[in-house]
């Protein structure tokens, strides 16, 4: 079998918003992925997730785009096609996207549900991908929940992370906002550098 060479990755640059997150930024184009991964009637514990992306000097990055992809409350990933103009008022998509350029402090905020465990050896988690100016690749990581300590202790992927770095993947519980909330700061560099993945 002949193997083809991959297309190299390039930076998303600073000007993605009018295509990738147009509605959030107020550009005259529609969006097919949003900060809400769910509808009002989606089963499960409704939560919000906030966070920041911090550069090597600890400064919040105001031009990143963050994507979440997660299972539903039963631990199932959506396999049915997402049809935003038909079903998104009701259905859980599991897929969200937010830019860090519209909220004070370059905070991203998602509304979703707390995912169920996908299978044995997996604690509830959310797949996170970041793109930004200054990053020549998408950066992949995961968000785990600090209030799932028992499940986290037996998670295969967390167990593969050096113990002293596991906390970089744990979102902490935050009060306020009307829903249970979790917050995760993603550190690109420094003592608390987030664990990023390679495939």
């Amino acid at each position, binding site marked *: 079998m002949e193997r083809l060479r991959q297309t190299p990755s390039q930076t998303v640059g*600073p000007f993605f918003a*009018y*295509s990738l997150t147009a509605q959030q930024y107020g550009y005259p184009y529609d969006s097919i992925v949003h900060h809400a991964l769910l509808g009002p009637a989606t089963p499960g514990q409704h939560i919000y997730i906030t966070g920041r992306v911090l550069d090597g000097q600890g400064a919040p990055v105001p031009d990143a785009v963050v994507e979440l992809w997660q299972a539903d409350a039963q631990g199932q990933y959506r396999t049915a096609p997402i049809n935003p103009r038909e079903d998104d008022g009701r259905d859980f998509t599991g897929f969200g996207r937010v830019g860090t350029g519209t909220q004070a402090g370059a905070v991203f905020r998602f509304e979703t549900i707390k995912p169920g465990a996908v299978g044995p050896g997996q604690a509830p988690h959310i797949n996170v991908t970041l793109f930004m*100016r200054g990053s020549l690749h998408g950066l992949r990581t995961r968000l785990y929940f600090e209030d799932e300590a028992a499940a986290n202790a037996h998670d295969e992927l967390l167990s593969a992370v050096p113990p002293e770095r596991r906390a970089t993947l744990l979102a902490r519980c935050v009060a306020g906002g009307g829903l249970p909330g979790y917050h995760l700061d993603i550190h690109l560099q420094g003592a608390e550098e987030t664990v990023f993945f390679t495939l």
Partner: protein
Amino acid sequence: MEPVNFDVQPPHLYPPYKSTILRSPTRPLLPVRELLKDLSLPVFGESVLQQFDNDLTKNARVNGEPIGERIKVAGRVFDEAGRPQPNVLLEIWQANAAGRYVHRREVHDAPLDPNFLGGGRVLTDREGRYSFYTIKPGAYPWGNHHNAWRPNHIHFSVLGHQLAHRLVTQMYFPGDPLFEFDPIYQSVPAHARELLVARFRMDWTDPEFALAYEFNIVLGGHHQSLFE
């Protein structure tokens, strides 16, 4: 014959592109291929597409046609084994013919075009094919270093079906004199830069309407088992 070099990706840290200095990971990345091998990505249905999403010369008209050279960009999406990838979501964005982005943080002193936004999207068909019409984007200056200019390019966000098939890249145009001065283009190993450059296709041209460029995309992942 020289062996093919499959190491095509740029490094995370590429100091000539200054923004990478504070924004690239410094520690080894955690290999997760085995752990995440069963994870697929979201799939979008046809209803995400509106009538002119694949025609940037039409999807933002206010009072006339956008200014500039109308072109067609088309190609196919494959995996590394050469299998066509159907139903892949391509989201695109670019500067207008004058080298100006609509984005509000853009400060380049070039005119906006009231009839051009520069954003669009398309899904690949069953054979992995896509095409869209647009205006050829202009070059523009940026602040990376003195007299820095980006070559003409179109941004692509690609969402395929496996975790490794999430790619953001840029398509360039053949023969651009700015290639040798652009650290983003140069961040890719020299032998692989051609993979980012579209091919001019006279035979795909719409006569008396639009010149055509071919840009094929190969989605990666390190599926060594396929090739060992």
